[in-house]
């Protein structure tokens, strides 16, 4: 226990927590959107994140040929390279998410089997992804070359902002805003909301259910992929099991904000990022996962519908 850290390191902890929180926001979109339409937890989302981190690393290392000794890039080349990594990671994660839906959920949904079967097959797909990557990489951690030189760009009293932190916060906020607009304004977004309200009725209204569900997985996957890219710019490291603890944290964030609720995921993600960062400073990093888990259990115990969500117990299908 070390509470003095909270006072002396307040601003850095706050900023790091916010950056981590914004990454969680994007990943928890993957959970919350899928939950909204299918009423099922997308167990493979943590692996979709993992695939995204590898896409970023592979593009910068193998496609552009950068390695640990490469000098950081500048100007147009930096934007172009980062952009390529981002697109690759979003595409890779999005496509994986759609494939996960086809392999794990679609057949079972058509058959109308019980929820347990879908859950188990989703876990199976998640194991296949994780183990496949483990065997391909020989369980070796991969590090991402530092493309963006990390410098402190803002000095305002005790507040010091690094450029990668700003990138994460600004970029994640923009993406979240876009998804939120997309879901509330466009036709497809309205279809997604309709399906999440009632599958049967939206079918009667002529909505192509499979298309809407695929689109939901695609968007959720792409957001998770973007989060993977941001994670790689900040933490620069990945491994086959990187998704496990992050996935659990992002899921907790989604539950905290009320699963199925986009704005809830936003506040939940931020709250959880801050909480994790402060808990790690006070208790030590090894207890981070334990704190997250305790938060999850406490939320489920006392406020199962989350801070902003619908009542979980009443949305039973």
């Amino acid at each position, binding site marked *: 226990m070390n509470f003095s850290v909270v006072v002396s390191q307040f601003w850095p902890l706050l900023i790091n927590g916010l950056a981590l929180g914004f990454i969680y926001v994007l990943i928890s979109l993957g959970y919350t959107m899928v939950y909204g339409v299918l009423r099922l937890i997308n167990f493979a989302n943590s692996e979709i994140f993992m695939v995204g981190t590898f896409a970023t690393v592979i593009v910068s290392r193998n496609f552009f040929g950068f390695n640990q000794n490469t000098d950081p890039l500048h100007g147009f080349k930096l934007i172009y390279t980062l952009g390529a990594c981002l697109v690759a990671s979003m595409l890779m994660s999005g496509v994986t998410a759609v494939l996960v839906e086809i392999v794990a959920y679609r057949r079972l949904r058509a058959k109308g*089997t019980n929820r347990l079967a879908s859950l188990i097959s989703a876990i199976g797909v998640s194991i296949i992804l994780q183990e496949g990557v483990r065997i391909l990489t020989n369980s070796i951690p991969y590090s991402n070359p530092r493309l963006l030189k990390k410098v402190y760009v803002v000095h305002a009293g005790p507040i010091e902002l690094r450029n990668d932190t700003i990138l994460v916060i600004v970029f994640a906020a923009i993406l979240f805003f876009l998804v939120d607009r997309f879901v509330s304004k466009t036709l497809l977004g309205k279809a997604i909301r309709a399906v999440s309200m009632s599958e049967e009725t939206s079918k009667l209204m002529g909505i192509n259910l499979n298309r809407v569900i695929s689109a939901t997985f695609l968007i959720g996957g792409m957001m998770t992929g973007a989060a993977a890219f941001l994670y790689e710019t900040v933490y620069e490291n990945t491994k086959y099991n990187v998704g496990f603890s992050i996935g659990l944290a992002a899921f907790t964030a989604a539950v905290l904000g009320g699963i199925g609720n986009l704005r809830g995921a936003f506040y939940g993600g931020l709250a959880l990022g801050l909480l994790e960062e402060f808990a790690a400073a006070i208790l030590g990093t090894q207890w981070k996962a334990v704190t997250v888990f305790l938060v999850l259990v406490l939320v489920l115990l006392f406020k199962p519908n989350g801070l902003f969500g619908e009542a979980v117990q009443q949305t039973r299908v």
Partner: protein
Amino acid sequence: MINLRDFGAEKWEKWNRPKRTTFVVILLALVTLLPFAGDYSFSNFLNTPISSYQAVLVYPVGMFVLMALGLNIVVGKSGLLDLGYVAFFAIGAYTAAILGTKTHLNIWEILPIGMGLAMISGVLLGLPTLRLRGDYLAIVTLGFGEIVRIVAVNNRSTGGPNGIANVPNPPSILGVRFALDNMQGFFWIILVMILLVIWMVRRLSVRRPGRAWEAIRQDEDVAMLMGVPTLRYKIWAFSIGAAIGGAAGVIFASKSMYVAPDMFSFNVSVLILSCVVFGGMGNIWGVILGGTILAYLPERIRFISNARQLVFGLALVIIMNVRPDGLLPRKKREKIHKAGEATTNV
């Protein structure tokens, strides 16, 4: 598709009592003698290339079947998805390791303590989560399994990442010695435990708890409307499963004389779940078959052992998509009715 389960059930139905007794006795005798099968030329195809055959029979085969039977009560009977079953196994194993090295209790005295602790942790975990829908239980148990491991790594009393060595072997009973060089003893004790669990599950299935679990599995809301105290029975299922996992953990710790956090990773939970799902959720014989196949084959066939997790993942997806009831599916309700009409003395 052929239904082996119904085929077997029909045969069983037609037999009279002496025939049934002979069958069970012969089967039991064969299983009891399994540890010696590797020594004779007509059965030595069972031998495993890497680890010793008798050790394989105890862990993974016997241990997995026992744990799969325990998990079957949770997943198969009452339809609750528990992804952290390894946590109870770990709690049992660490109880045996800590009490066995720090106190003078022997393993037989520790066994009920380990089961009790696993059961209590099952209740504590179940109370907040079993009120909610199944998916939440899945993810909370997933987290719990990992948390138990993290606590074991970071705690001084559990020996940290190095674990605890010199866990005592159980003292001998009825002349059967339990030691590293005498694995058949452990096999027999697990066999006895498996038989006890089978007996317990069969008894429970035809009584109130079994009916309540079946109702919960089929439709929880309807069960609740019909006056089934669903939460109470779900917690019962969860804690009975946990106790069996704890028992397996105690025996495991004293068999390998050593526990370390690495032994209790998420993989074990997945393995046990695959055994249940592969064999046939809810059907004891299916679960035993699934456990035996999935535990034994990777040891026997060398090239699977590296990619074993991958194979299990594939097994989960394929079984769920192609044959969601597993190799030996559970009895269907209609068939029970039919059997009830045909024979009056069921």
